[in-house]
């Protein structure tokens, strides 16, 4: 009821096309929750909710494709009064997120059954987290970036602690939660300071403001920028904000770890690129040294710390820190080429990380606790296909030619060299060599003869249908990205050109 003298608020028009991919995912999550409460005792609910989740991802992919077609012919634009950017960049990142979500869902079905954790809520939470990531990929405002960061993180905190019988899973959830909320607070403080300095939270508004007005005293802006970098550095697991990564990646249920490594990195790097290369491009003289430092530290810390590990899941967790370093090399270039190289790297990493963690999940068997290097001894003679696939994913992570990893590393290095950062490229290559050593250790363990006296015979490794499909997709994608990278590289390049500013 509107009283006299009060003018009704004129609502902004809603651009449904701009938000359809996110709505499709979230609707699937809601549907699962409803189904769960309606058919509580039906044993088929678990299977049905996984199918609903996959259908949601497919619908979301369809809408993302529609967005791409529109953006490709009509150019990028901003929707929802500037809070959402509909552009090629967003479409690319969304495609990566959807792909990673699909793979993680496929892995989860069998895993949850094996661990007796069947619960539709798992899929609902994973879809909610993916919704947050999608929102982040297209967010054009610091407020929406913060909200999507919270959406994706809070769902992940719960997912990390999902296997409550395992102490390490609970520890992972709590640790991620505490450190994550701390980093969110830092990020929020950064938003407040940037808002204080520029008077807007719109990324495009910030860029316009900085292009028009030269700040005489820009201390507040710099502190804000630094805090934003810290907050996002935490989410992408860049050193020195990586402390949580090994414990959380190791403790979380393995499909969740794969999802975290692949999709969260993609979403968070989308925010990094939009904020730093997009909104603060004019200040790149000031933020590039900081990103340079983060990149070098991540590369070295990630690969050197991985060498001394004996736990394979932990090794891969440390390596994910160093992969964040490679992406930061692309970010640091602050050019279109660097951006598209970073996008391509994020896409490749999503595939190879999910693939590697999928095998880790299978080898761990029931209880999800066989992660030691000795558990991999003799895998090649027992399960040659699995050992071969893991070798493929590890070689891809090491950057061996004919895999996507090689092209990805090559493109970030060449982006760095184009702007004269020879040292950074050199550090990257050094890290790649150290990383190759780590991967070879795992591969050698697999092809070593089985250790008959020490290793107790565990339960058989069972590959369920969903995991098999996911592994096939991941292996196909990694070879595809390595042999004919042109298609995805062109996509990344076109996506960068169609960035809403």
């Amino acid at each position, binding site marked *: 009821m509107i009283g006299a003298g009060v003018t009704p608020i004129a609502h*902004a028009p809603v651009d449904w096309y701009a938000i359809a991919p996110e709505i499709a995912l979230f609707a699937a999550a*809601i549907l699962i929750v409803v189904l769960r409460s309606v058919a509580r005792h039906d044993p088929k609910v678990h299977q049905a909710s996984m199918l609903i989740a996959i259908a949601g991802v497919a619908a979301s992919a369809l809408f993302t494709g529609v967005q791409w077609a529109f953006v490709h012919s009509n150019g990028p634009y901003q929707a929802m009064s500037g809070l959402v950017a509909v552009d090629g960049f967003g479409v690319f990142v969304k495609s990566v997120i959807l792909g990673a979500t699909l793979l993680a869902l496929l892995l989860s079905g069998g895993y949850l059954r094996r661990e007796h954790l069947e619960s539709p*809520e798992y899929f609902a939470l994973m879809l909610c987290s993916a919704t947050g990531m999608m929102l982040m990929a297209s967010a054009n405002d610091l407020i*929406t970036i913060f909200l999507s960061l919270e959406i994706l993180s*809070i769902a992940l905190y*719960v997912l990390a602690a999902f296997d*409550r019988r395992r102490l390490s899973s609970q520890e992972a959830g709590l640790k991620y939660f505490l450190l994550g909320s701390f980093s969110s607070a830092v990020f929020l403080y950064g938003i407040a300071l940037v808002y204080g300095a*520029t008077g*807007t939270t719109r990324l495009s508004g910030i860029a316009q403001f900085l292009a028009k007005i030269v700040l005489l005293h820009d201390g507040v802006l710099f502190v804000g920028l630094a805090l934003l970098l810290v907050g996002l550095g935490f989410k992408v697991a860049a050193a020195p904000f990586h402390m949580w990564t090994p414990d959380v990646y190791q403790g979380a249920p393995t499909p969740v770890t794969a999802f975290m490594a692949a999709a969260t990195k993609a979403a968070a790097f989308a925010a990094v690129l939009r904020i730093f290369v997009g909104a603060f491009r004019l200040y790149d003289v000031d933020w590039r040294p900081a990103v340079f430092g983060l990149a070098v530290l991540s590369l070295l810390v990630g690969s050197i710390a991985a060498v001394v590990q004996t736990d394979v899941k932990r090794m891969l967790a440390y390596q994910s820190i160093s992969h964040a370093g490679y992406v930061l090399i692309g970010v640091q270039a602050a050019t279109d080429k660097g951006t598209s190289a970073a996008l391509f790297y994020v896409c490749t990493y999503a595939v190879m990380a999910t693939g590697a963690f999928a095998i880790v999940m299978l080898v761990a068997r029931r209880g999800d606790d066989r992660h030691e290097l000795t558990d991999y001894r003799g895998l090649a003679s027992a399960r040659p296909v699995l050992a071969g696939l893991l070798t493929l994913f590890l070689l891809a992570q090491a950057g061996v030619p004919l895999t996507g990893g090689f092209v990805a590393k090559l493109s970030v290095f060449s982006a760095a060299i184009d702007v004269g950062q020879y040292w950074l490229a050199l550090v990257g290559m050094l890290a790649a060599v150290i990383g190759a050593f780590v991967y070879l250790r795992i591969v050698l363990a697999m092809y070593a003869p089985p250790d008959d006296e020490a290793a107790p015979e565990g*339960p058989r490794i069972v590959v369920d249908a969903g995991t098999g499909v996911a592994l096939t997709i991941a292996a196909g994608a990694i070879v595809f990205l390595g042999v004919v990278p042109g298609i995805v590289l062109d996509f990344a390049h076109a996506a960068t050109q169609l960035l809403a500013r």
Partner: protein
Amino acid sequence: MEAVVFFVCGAAVIIGALGVIAGRNPVHSALFLLLTLVSIAVLYLQQHAALVAAVQIVVYASAIVVLFLFVITLLGVDKGEAPDDAHPVQQVAAVVLGVLVLTGILVLVHGNRWVTGAHSTRGALGAADSGNVETLAKSLFTDFVWAFEMTAVLLVIAVVGSVVLARRSGHRADAPSAEAHATEPGERSPA
């Protein structure tokens, strides 16, 4: 007058913040937190942000602090058994880094025009008697309506997540632990 209010409240904010981390008794820490939050609310009032001040009181000073006190009393940690397991190196590092940040802020404040930016981008706050509910509502339901709607996802996650975490622990209290799982009969039989 304004300066007096500012300095009194500013001092109260800092004293409260120090009290939170220095207090040995968790209940005292929670009460110091209350002091900080209420003082910040007064500072908001001074900036003519009546609505934000009210929200600060209702949400933070009331709901959240009460929740803290509930948890403290339910868990029974108010017996003064403050965990003292901070590593000495960590303590030194925390102090050094804190001083560094403080110096950084002081250096920034040093110039008298340390903030240059756009002023009052959302327009005037409105007449003092109307508060600023109208301005805020307009902003929330026009420009920021999408951000407002996004919080719906957060609420769903909060409900589903807390149900998952809470129910499972009660339901599965007697479930075998991970070690017991691994040694279940039939589980270890050679393949």
